[in-house]
């Protein structure tokens, strides 16, 4: 068991720090949360900067245009960029972490050549059309239909929880191509242009008041058959490759950020003269244990993935169950620290408390995650 950087990792970290220190001060101001074109421009410009110095697609395979970095190097990259306050992956998220890796793993040579380089350069933005209002936790019960018409699919249906839909060029879309097959067997994966006729995007307001997500209505949208990745009706398997990526290092930056928040909360408590309240103090102390452990669990999962050749283990569900709860406890503690200011949306942490509520729901509810842990890791019987 070793937590120290290897020589190579130390070198990688040092160079990255140096580069970040040099370029971050020159970045323009961050656009506002509702300025979608501005956010796209900001996020893609950052991606282009990463591309130009060779950090783009760090964890992608070399033959897909990536750097073939180890999971640990990827971890270091995410850790250092978060600690330096660098921009997030933002609008590039789906392209870099879902659609891109899927195309890299399952696409034809032509598909890889067409779609991967623009993702790495920040030239094209992808969004995700998986979730549907009626499907929810039962993702595979999706109903959006694709009917073959010559060399096109004609797609009709409704998608939800699509981030960056307003500014995306492409959508990775799950559609039902065989309504008669068992639900997991009749799904196909398509790349759909967002400017195709029949695509309507409507912002979806969340309880936090923001429009971070959208609904997407598809009315006889024509998608070329050549834009299907993987075999027809094999889309569920194709997608699972993508989803396991999501659970690998998706929360690295957030755990680092949570630890920073925790220190800031302690500082705020001292500043406000309430450090002599042991209830508050011990609550923060407990959360310190929690987030230290979550950071170590991240490192453990990454090291495991590294040993197994990059395949994320089942540790992702264990991590997500605990992290989603710990994050909610962190912002409950923040509300305690804020006291009378806890209802002021302009105070730091108040909005985060609201968004933290989605963590036990999004990307597999805690109930679904517990089923996964119980059935796939512990081997308990299915059903009931």
């Amino acid at each position, binding site marked *: *068991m*070793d*937590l*120290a*950087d*290897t020589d190579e*990792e130390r070198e990688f970290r040092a160079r990255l720090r140096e580069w970040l220190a040099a370029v971050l001060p020159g970045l323009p101001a961050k656009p506002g949360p509702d300025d979608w074109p501005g956010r796209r421009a900001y996020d893609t410009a950052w991606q282009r900067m990463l591309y130009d110095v060779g950090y783009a697609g760090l964890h992608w395979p070399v033959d897909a245009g990536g750097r073939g970095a180890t999971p*640990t190097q990827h*971890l270091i990259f995410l*850790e250092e960029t978060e*600690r330096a306050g660098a921009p997030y992956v933002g609008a590039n998220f789906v392209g870099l972490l879902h659609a891109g890796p899927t195309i890299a793993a399952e696409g034809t040579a032509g598909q890889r050549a067409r779609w991967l380089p623009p993702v790495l350069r920040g030239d094209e933005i992808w969004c995700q059309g998986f979730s549907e209002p009626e499907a929810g936790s039962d993702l595979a019960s999706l109903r959006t239909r694709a009917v073959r018409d010559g060399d096109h699919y004609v797609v009709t249906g409704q998608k939800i929880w699509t981030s960056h839909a307003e500014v995306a060029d492409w959508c990775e879309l799950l559609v039902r191509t065989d309504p008669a097959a068992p639900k997991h067997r009749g799904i196909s994966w398509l790349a759909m242009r967002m400017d195709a006729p029949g695509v309507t995007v409507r912002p979806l307001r969340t309880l936090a008041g923001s429009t971070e997500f959208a609904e997407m209505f598809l009315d006889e949208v024509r998608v070329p058959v050549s834009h299907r990745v993987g075999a027809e009706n094999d889309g569920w398997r194709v997608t699972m490759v993508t989803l396991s990526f999501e659970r690998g290092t998706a929360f690295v930056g957030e755990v*680092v950020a949570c*630890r*920073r928040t*925790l*220190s800031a*909360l*302690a*500082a705020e408590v*001292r500043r406000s003269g309430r450090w002599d309240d*042991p209830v508050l*103090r*011990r609550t*923060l*102390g*407990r959360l*310190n*244990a*929690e987030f*230290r*452990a*979550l*950071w*170590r*669990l991240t*490192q*453990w999962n*990454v*090291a*495991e993935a590294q*040993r197994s050749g990059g395949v994320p283990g089942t*540790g992702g569900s*264990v991590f997500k*169950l*605990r992290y989603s709860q710990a994050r909610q406890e962190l912002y409950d503690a923040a509300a305690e620290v804020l006291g009378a200011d806890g209802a002021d949306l302009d105070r730091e942490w108040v909005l985060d408390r609201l968004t933290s509520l989605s963590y036990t729901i999004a990307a597999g509810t805690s*109930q679904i*995650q*517990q*089923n996964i*842990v*119980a*059935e796939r*890791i*512990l*081997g*308990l*019987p*299915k*059903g*009931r």
Partner: protein
Amino acid sequence: MDFQLSDDQRALRAGMRELLTGRFGRDRMRAALDAGVAVDRGMWGELGAAGFFALRLAEADGGVGLGLPESVLLFEEAGRVLLPGPLAATHLAAGAVGAVKGAADGGAVVAVLDEGRPVAHLEAADALIALGPVRPGGVARVLEGDVLRELVRTARPVRSLDPLTPLHRVTAGVEDGVPLPGATPLRLEGALLAAAEQLGSAARTTEMAVQHAREREQFGSPIGAFQAVKHLCAQMLVRAEVARTAVYAAAVTADPAEIAGAKLLADEAAVHNARDCLQVHGGMGFTWEADVHLHLKRAWLRAGEWLRAAEAEEALAADLCRVHACDAGDL
């Protein structure tokens, strides 16, 4: 970074599991329970021969020359099988060169005196380590010979919650005895070793619950098919695995705040998992014949030893006040 067990570490763990399975399987544990004999000198010697106590003693001094991570793996195995006796104290005494003769090879039993707390395994002890106060820099001392005998003579037996951990109340203070050489952070290391035992117990009760949930049928199917049971088991695994990485990382870094966090989370995992294991077992878990109560009672006891929740939380709170804690590169 390679935060996974090395092949040597796996082999070490496997060896200890094999030794304990043969030497302290369930039948032996139950026999010890019925006989009321917690510390078996023969077994103590075998543990010594296997390097359990001398693991971290330098090879030049006759030890194995390994580190805290390896100790933690052995103590996790001890926790799994409810191995009784003052394992951590004897291990610590063996590491401090010459502190207690015979500790390294399992010839001596060394217990702990923590002021204000009952002493475990006092009657079996050849020496006592008296811990200094919780604050850093507290000096620990060794009590042996006449001092120890007088202390045993005036001690009052306590009817112990844990049938394999006899307890005594003593009146001596930590000012007695011979100061231990060096400023060894005994309390922290003891806390970490106890956390490793808690981790082993938490992992074991998870397995026990899962096994029962697979085998026990109610309402026409294994109870593990019901979400209520399934989710209890899933949360047990989460607790055990989070505690595992906390304990292993603390063993690698030996950072005081990290050790405090490991003890806190491992205590919680052991206690909570034993309770959930009992719940999964239903009425059968409430019997003396089921082992689950022994895990719970030991977990309760260990949670009160070395570093308690309130102390750990305070240490972890104080840790947050270090300037730029998150930017100091120790994340």
